[in-house]
Each structure stands twice: as structure tokens, then as C-alpha cells.
């Protein structure tokens, strides 16, 4: 089994050329929506150099990093800060930062380890949870899971703070196996019961996590047939030792980055999983192999994902080079079903088709209108297409190139052009932008 056989690297050729559409696909999947210049640069550079740049250790611009850190101070984001402010904090990072791939992967892990402020109720613990994700998002999965086991937010979320010797709480052990590392069918109830004993002895006292050795179960536990006085790290080690773990993560990454419609082939899963294991669960190695592949740029993956609300909204704002406040945008995203730091349950967001129904589709259209109309009281004229286009003589071409890389039916483009001709100035351009963002094609990533 050759990684190259199923994850052959994409090198543009005349049979499979590098196009604007593919550039757009790459930038959308590895971020939240490109600007015109980012598209142009990606088109000029080609796929692999662009991916080099995306994976490189680029730091957030100093201004953005400073602003984000300031907004994360305890006086700015106190313990009892509301969920919306917390969500706005992350959204602010996404809007102003320069590490789209990093934030996108943080979003993946956030969905994977879905922990919600609704139960945790402590904004600073959620902030700490995010920092853990952020530090290890592209790094060592083992370290990440170990960190999660004793992350204060996670411990409150899955009741580890209630778990003590003699009365262990199985919640974390169960989700660790079922949702975080292995998936159903790869463990038994006995494994869960025994593993739960390792996650004992922690308590929440005066808003701090405190460990009491006498409340911790130090005895021998038998998990996956292996016996010893396992602690939390050992349990994680035992989980990761099972082949099912790497495959589980590969499948989840595939769903997140590749397709809402189809699952990956068994061969692809096995080869990627093997690579992941050989690299000691290094996320960068795995993702590089997956995202640099020809398969990633193939027609079965192109436009096979529904944009999440955040991708939809941020895509519009970034595309129009707007300057929107994160707080009002976060409030609208809540209604679209995606409040950062508040997934609906430990399963995370269902995603895919569940982002769209008659109500949310309508709300998306209205949000696009609010962003571009300059008439909304929260957004005012901060995202004005007229300002962005600066007197462009062919707005339809520029906008369809920016938002859809020209990949839309001729009939649709003709209708849009007819509208633009009839309404060439001011509000007409704003409406045109709204109409383009309302196209079904624009809902797909």
C-alpha cells in the first residue's frame, strides 16, 4: 500500500490544469473565503507553493495578534462573559488574522472535542480550551488528547469534576473512546468502566481546578486487555495504539475538508491512517498528504461541501474587503445555527446539509443583504460593494470571478448582467452583490 497510489500529489498538467476555480476551491477549503489578490496570487503561484505558504509558520500580523490578546485579557473577557462575546472574540481573530488554515483546523478540533459554554459557564476556561486547541491543532494529536483530558472546560463539560474513587463518572471515558479517538464498535462497556477510574480526583473549587490524590483511583485497571495502574495519559496511549484511532481521525478530516456527500474509500483511509501513525500522529504530516493530493482537487471533491454559516458570512466580508464588527456578526451567526464555543451537543455540529433548510437559507439571504446594503444599523456601510468595486465597469465579471471563479451557469450570468445593465449604479451594485451571494452555487464551498 503506497501513499502515493491513493494520495498522489497534484502536479498541474495540460490534462489537469491549474485553474482559477481550483484556486478558489483550495482557498475556500483551507480558510474562510479569499480576496481578489489572494486568488490571483494562488493562480500565479500554483497549488503546491500556495500550500507551502498556507502551512508555513506565518504568524498573525502584529496588530491582529495584539488586538486579539488584549481582547482576551481578564478585564476584557471576564469569567462571566457571555457566550456571544466569546464567540465574537474568535470571530474577530478569523476576520482580522492572517492564518486561515490554522483557524480552520482549530474549528475542526473545536467541533471534534465539542465543548459548550452553556454548561461550562466559565468564559476563561473556554478561552483556555481554545488555546489548547490552537497550540496543538497542527501538531501532536496525542498531546492534544492528553491536554483535553485535563482541560478545565472539558472536565466540567463531561463531568470529570464529579468523578472520584469509588464513584467514577464514565462520561469522559465514554466520549473519549466513542467520539474523540475510536468510534463505536472499537471498545466495550467494560473498557469504558475501567478507563473511567483513571479520570478521578479532580474538583472545581472557587473557580479553580484542584486535584486531591486521595480522591483519585490509583489501582490497577484493565483496558483493551492491558492491565496496570493506568492514569489518564496511559488510557490515551492505549486508545491511540489501536489501528481504529488513526482511521477514525482520517475519516473525520475527510468529512470536514473533502466532502459532505461521500465517504473516503477504504484504501484511502488505510494509507492515510498508516502515514498518520508513522508520523506519530502529527496532524501537519497527515494534512499535507491529504490536501496536496490530486484527489483533493478532483471533481468528486470540488463543490461537495456546504459552507458553514461562518464560511458564508466571512467569505462575503473578506471578499468585499469589508471591516465588520465581530460582535454583531456573531449574533447573526447564532441564528444561522453556528455559535462558536456553543455546539448543540457533545456530537458537535452535524454540518453538511443540516446547515440549510428553508429558514436558514432565507436568513443567509437576508444576512447577505444586510452586509451589502449599507442600510443595516449594525453593519452600516462597512462592507459596501460600491466602495470595493471603485467604479469597475464590469461589476458582474469581477464579482462572479471573486465569489464563484466564474463557475456558474451561462443563463444565470446573463440574467445578472441584464440586471446590472438596468441598475448600473449605487444600490444597483449592492443588490447585484446580494443576488450573487444568494445563488445556490455560492452556498457550496
Amino acid at each position, binding site marked *: 500500500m503506497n501513499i502515493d497510489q491513493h494520495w498522489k500529489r497534484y502536479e498541474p498538467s495540460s490534462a489537469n490544469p491549474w485553474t482559477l476555480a481550483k484556486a478558489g476551491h483550495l482557498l475556500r477549503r483551507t480558510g474562510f473565503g479569499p480576496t481578489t489578490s489572494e486568488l490571483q496570487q494562488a493562480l500565479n503561484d500554483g497549488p503546491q507553493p500556495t500550500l507551502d505558504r498556507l502551512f508555513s509558520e506565518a504568524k498573525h500580523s502584529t496588530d491582529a495578534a495584539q488586538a486579539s490578546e488584549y481582547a482576551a485579557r481578564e478585564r476584557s473577557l471576564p469569567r462571566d462573559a457571555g457566550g456571544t462575546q466569546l464567540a465574537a472574540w474568535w470571530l474577530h481573530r478569523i476576520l482580522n488574522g492572517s492564518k486561515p488554515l490554522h483557524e480552520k483546523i482549530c474549528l475542526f478540533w473545536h467541533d471534534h472535542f465539542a465543548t*459548550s459554554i*452553556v*454548561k461550562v459557564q466559565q468564559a476563561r476556561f473556554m478561552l483556555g480550551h481554545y488555546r489548547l486547541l490552537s497550540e496543538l491543532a497542527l501538531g501532536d494529536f496525542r498531546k492534544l488528547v492528553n491536554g483535553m483530558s485535563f482541560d478545565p472546560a472539558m472536565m466540567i463539560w463531561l*463531568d470529570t469534576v464529579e468523578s472520584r474513587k469509588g464513584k467514577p463518572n464514565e462520561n469522559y471515558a465514554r466520549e473519549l473512546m*466513542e*467520539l474523540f479517538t475510536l*468510534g*463505536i464498535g472499537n471498545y466495550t462497556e467494560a473498557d469504558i468502566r475501567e478507563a473511567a477510574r483513571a479520570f478521578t480526583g479532580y474538583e472545581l473549587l472557587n473557580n479553580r481546578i484542584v486535584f486531591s490524590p486521595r480522591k483519585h483511583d490509583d489501582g490497577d485497571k484493565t483496558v483493551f486487555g492491558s492491565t496496570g495502574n493506568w492514569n489518564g495519559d496511559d488510557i490515551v496511549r492505549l486508545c491511540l495504539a489501536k489501528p481504529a484511532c488513526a482511521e477514525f481521525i482520517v475519516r473525520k478530516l475527510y468529512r470536514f475538508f473533502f466532502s*459532505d*456527500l461521500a465517504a473516503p474509500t477504504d484504501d484511502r483511509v488505510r494509507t492515510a491512517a498508516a502515514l498518520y501513525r508513522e508520523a506519530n500522529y502529527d496532524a501537519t504530516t497527515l494534512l499535507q498528504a491529504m490536501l496536496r493530493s490530486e484527489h483533493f482537487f478532483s471533481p468528486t471533491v470540488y*463543490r*461537495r*461541501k*456546504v459552507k458553514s454559516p461562518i464560511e458564508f458570512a466571512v467569505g462575503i466580508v473578506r471578499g468585499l474587503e469589508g471591516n465588520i464588527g465581530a460582535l454583531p456578526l456573531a449574533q447573526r451567526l447564532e*441564528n444561522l*445555527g453556528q455559535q462558536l464555543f456553543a455546539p*448543540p*451537543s*457533545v*456530537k458537535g455540529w*452535524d454540518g*453538511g*446539509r*443540516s446547515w*440549510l*433548510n*428553508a*429558514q*436558514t*437559507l*432565507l*436568513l443567509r*439571504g*437576508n444576512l447577505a*443583504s*444586510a452586509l*451589502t*446594503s449599507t*442600510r443595516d444599523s449594525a453593519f452600516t456601510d462597512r462592507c459596501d460593494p460600491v466602495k470595493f468595486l471603485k467604479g469597475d465597469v464590469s461589476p458582474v465579471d469581477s464579482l462572479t470571478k471573486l465569489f464563484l471563479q466564474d463557475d456558474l*451557469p451561462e*443563463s*444565470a450570468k446573463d*440574467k*445578472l448582467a441584464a*440586471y446590472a445593465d*438596468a*441598475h448600473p449604479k449605487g*444600490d444597483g451594485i*449592492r*443588490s447585484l452583490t*446580494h*443576488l450573487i451571494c*444568494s*445563488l*445556490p*452555487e455560492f*452556498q*457550496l464551498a
Partner: protein
Amino acid sequence: MTHRRDFLKTSTLLGFGAAVPGFLGKTAFATPNADKAGAKETILVVVQLTGGNDGLNTVIPRKDAEYVKLRPTIGVPQDDVLKLNDDYGLHPMMEGAAKLYADGLMTIVHGVGYPNPSQSHFRSMDIWNVGHLRESITEGWLGQAMFQNKAGAFHLGGETAPLALQGGTVKAPSIASLAEFQRKFLSGNAADASEQESLVRSTSNGEAGGNDLLDFVQRTATTTYAAGDRLKLLNKNYEAKQPYPTNGLGGKLKLAAQLIDANLGARIYYVSMDGFDTHAGQGGKAGAHANLLGEFSSAVTAFVRDLEARGHGKRVTVLAFSEFGRRAKENGSRGTDHGSGAPLMLFGGGLKGGIVGEHPSLTKLHEGNLVHTVDFRRAYASILKDRLGVEPEKVIGKGHDPLPLFAG
């Protein structure tokens, strides 16, 4: 938390795009368990009476001397009570409800509560919202039901969405008015707006070119516009068969009726009415509490009659509950303090009608509170099974026998 096991299977999403499969010519995502009893599109409308409704002055014992003793100033005179049967009657402001009762469209369950009742608004409301007594609360009973039967729900009103609806596959939208169902277009005049509207529609009808996902988006878009049209039409021409009162609850229930009639497919509607925390100056036959009951009764009556006239009578059930009742004895400020053991009220067709259960004793009180005679989870069990097509165990756990609330 047994439902988590399903999540990795391909999620069949049903917002209310699923309501019109035939119209689209393709089978959209079908309602599972469509052939199971109780899973036909029956609808539950929950009316939350926030603050702690004084059940003893709502469903009033007619010939009980103890009642008069306990409530010297706020008691309702026996002659004014609207008779339901020999022993009990409704508050005089609830004429509409009394008529519904006479027509077999109302069921009252006496003395509903739970062991060790909490007197805290928040804790007790949480308990009613999640359907269990554990400390850890993240998902509501209706949210879990929605997860099971893949139905959609609406929260109508401007308040924060209730905990009861959390936990479904999608967040239940909070709607304050029909205007939120209208697409907004930036335009200087009506002609421009309609030009844009038709452009959006025509570009949503294209060819998917083999991309099933694009096809899904296109179909969802078509459903969106169809639903929007129905609602616009309804809004224009909606003539309630019985006029809705112009109060808060009336407006919300009218909106619910319009959404139900528009066949959007949602099966749960949640509204709330505030103001029931009558610690002082509650009033008896007339006064603050009486006005609330009057608003409640007239709104619910208009709703039930309206739906009946439109042919939805049998499948819509209204459940009215409050987080607790109030003390049997009035306090020194001519009001009542937090208590327990209030009645549950259900309205609509498909009900058995009448009064269920035993009224709490007015003499054997516990620390001044009425002792509940039936656990609220038994009512939930009945609703889950017979109205939402969900196994009660999966939501509220074992050990709660469903009450006999529904006919057939």
C-alpha cells in the same frame, strides 16, 4: 444520552424542507417512523406561563370551605366560578376555556409536580424544561424528542429560546413575526424588489450537473420560496375564524396558527406568557391574575377554534404549564408566594377531555404548599408517545407511566 450513537450515520436532515416531497417530484428526506402510530404530523404547541401560575385560583374547588378560609381576600366567590363539574370550576375570566371544556376540547390534570419541589424560578423551570431532576442540564425534553423524530420546531417570541428546545439536530429558530420569513431586498420601489425576487428564483432552478449537493441546495431554495409565498398569502388574507385578542399571547398564537396552516412541517411550537409571579395585589375575581387568565383563555380559545375551522383541530394539542403553583394560603400583601402542585391544562382535538387525577388536599399541606398528586413526567410520557411519536424512555427515562390523555 443514548442517541449519540446515530450521529455518524449519514444525517438525514429535515428542516421543514421535507414538508413538500410530492410537489418537488423527488423524494426528499422522509420522516422516519412515518408509519408508526402517533407520528402523523401531529403538532404540539407549548404555552409556558412564566412566574408560577396560581393553580388554585385557576381551577377552583367549588364547594370547599377550606378554600374560602385560606383565601379571605383573593378567593373567588363560589357563585362566580364557571362550573366544570360539581366539584371544580374555572376562574370567571376563562369563559373561552370553559366552553372548550364543555366541547370536550380541554383536559385538566390536577396537582402536577415532582418530588421535593424547588421554589426557585430558575431551578424549577429548568426541571420542567429538561424533564428530569438531575443537576446536569444541557438538553431539553423537546430537543431530545426532535432529535428522535427529526422534526422541526419554532420558538415564537422575542425572549431567549427556551432550554426545552435545545438538543435537536438543528437549532429551533426564534421568530417574532412573519416579517422574519420575508426575503429582504434593497430597492427603491416595488418593481425593483420583485425583479430581484424573480431573478433569485429563476437562478435557483438550474441544472445541478450531477452534483447532488447543488441539487439539494436548489431544492431547498425552491421550498424556501414556496413557503415564503404561502406565508405572504396567508398574512394578507388571514382572517381568523374567531378573532384573536390583540394581546401578547394572542399575537403569538396567531403567528403559530399561520405557520401551522402554511404547512411548514414543524411539529413543535413554543410560546410563553409572563407575569404570573403574583406576590402582591394578585386580585381574586378581578385584578392582575384575573387579567392574565383572561388573556390566556381568550388567546388559546381563538387559537383552538381557528385551527378547528381550518381542519387542523384533531392534530394540534396545546399544553399549558407553569414552573410551579402557589401557596394555598394567601400572604399579607393580598397575593401568594411560590408553591407547588398546580394543574396542567391541555387543549385541542384528539384529547380525551375532562379532568384527570386527584386534586391536592387543601388541609394536608406540606410547609404551606399543595402536595402534588401526579408526576409531570407522566404527562410528558403521554405527549411524547401519542403526539410526537417518540419512545418516552429515550427522553425522560424509565418509570413514568403515560397518563391517559389522548383519545384513540
